[in-house]
């Protein structure tokens, strides 16, 4: 059982009792392979008998649709966007993640508050303010940061996926470059700087994502196994001591 720890003030009405699940975060910039690795981790965990739910940005019942619609236009203001994302996050935290953790699930989340904080920082939003807003966030059991050195690496991945450059992923609202390509590279470069800054602050487990998928996946599994097996070992010890006391009682 972990005692729930929050970065700031916990949301009101959230039970303070411990939970037996694990909150595992996959973070990284756009195109770094987060969704691929999240899916792979999920099947691996399920194969080992763990119940898993995964979640990610803009997937909340409350705000997901509205946020996606707001992003189809270009009138979404800087602060409005941050707060809309925070609403989406809080809904998933309170209604998806926390209940699943209490029920003993492994919760895999594709991005957490760190992407939101990085995006806010790149847009000149007060870093203390955005951290205070996300003070309601639960401190995860593990934060895996998929890191690439240079934004150019991400470009080839976007191209390989057959997607077009996305307006927001390219930071087009910031007027950073003449076109989507220039803007994408500049925007993602700035995000990488912010992620590096946060690595120490939040204790990211940094994984070099420039390597082949197979090797990255192996690293991720090893890190996840450590977090999960620490608990399984504790379970066994507990089981053993129960057995021992039964024998003594008899």
């Amino acid at each position, binding site marked *: 059982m972990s005692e729930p720890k929050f970065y700031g003030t916990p949301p009101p009405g959230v039970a303070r009792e411990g939970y037996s699940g694990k909150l595992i975060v996959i973070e990284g910039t756009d195109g770094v392979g987060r969704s691929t690795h999240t899916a792979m981790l999920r099947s691996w965990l399920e194969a080992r008998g763990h119940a898993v739910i995964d979640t990610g940005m803009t997937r909340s019942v409350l705000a997901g649709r509205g*946020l996606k619609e707001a992003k189809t236009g270009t009138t979404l203001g800087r602060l409005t966007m941050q707060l809309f994302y925070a609403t989406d996050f809080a809904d998933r935290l309170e209604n998806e993640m926390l209940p699943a953790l209490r029920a003993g699930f492994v919760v895999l989340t594709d991005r957490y508050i760190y992407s939101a904080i990085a995006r806010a920082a790149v847009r000149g939003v007060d870093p203390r303010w955005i951290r205070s807003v996300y003070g309601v966030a639960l401190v995860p059991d593990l934060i895996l940061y998929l890191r690439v050195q240079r934004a150019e690496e991400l470009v080839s991945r976007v191209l390989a996926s057959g997607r077009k450059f996305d307006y927001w992923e390219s930071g087009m609202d910031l007027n950073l470059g003449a076109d989507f390509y220039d803007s994408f590279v500049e925007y993602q470069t700035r995000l990488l700087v912010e992620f590096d800054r946060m690595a120490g602050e939040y204790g990211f487990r940094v994984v070099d994502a420039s390597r082949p998928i197979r090797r990255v996946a192996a690293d991720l599994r090893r890190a996840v196994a450590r977090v999960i097996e620490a608990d399984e070992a504790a379970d066994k010890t507990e089981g053993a001591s129960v057995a021992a006391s039964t024998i003594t009682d008899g």
Partner: protein
Amino acid sequence: MISYGKHRLPGKLFVVEGTDGSGKSTQLALLHQWLKAEGHPVFFSEWNSSPLVKETTRRAKKRRLFTPTTFSLLHATDFADRTERDIIPPLKAGAIVLADRYIYTAFARDVARGCDRAWVRDLYRFAVRPTVAFFFRAPLDVAIDRVVSGRPALKHYEAGLDMDWSDDAEESFKIFQGRILEEYDRMVSEFGLTVIDATRSIVHQQREMRRIVMRHLEGEEAAA
């Protein structure tokens, strides 16, 4: 991001606050008419009116999806959109902006719902400090009576039924409004709210309001 109290904008921002049924919207509408007749450029902005957020709020209320935290965050999102779109640009242009409910509504309601006082205040740190924030103070029974008798049924969140204080809508509404009023009273000195006695006649209240507003506009004209 410019923090509360740090904006330097040539326009004037007048806001009205108070519990439901305090008569603040009536007073603001009268002020609006008067300022327009006097030839001032006036913009009006209302709580909960951002076109980007409206549909999400409507759905969430209907399907009862809110927790105190998401209620607070979505209203802050709505307010941020209005600040970025409807409040700061006209104030930059030197216009008068009138707001029916402002950040103090969120502070009162969200804290009444159990949100942390400091957290909610920080959430709205980007807000422009009003030139004057009028607080129409009505005793609890007067305000409750005006709302309950004037409307077919209290709505779920309006009555605070999400908080499980009482199964009875009217009872729950009373508890909720009592807590809200307590928060408003606490904010009078914290934020320098201008208290208007909402039990006085409509004409009397409006006269008082215009006198105060005029003082702020005259100061400007004398300087120009």
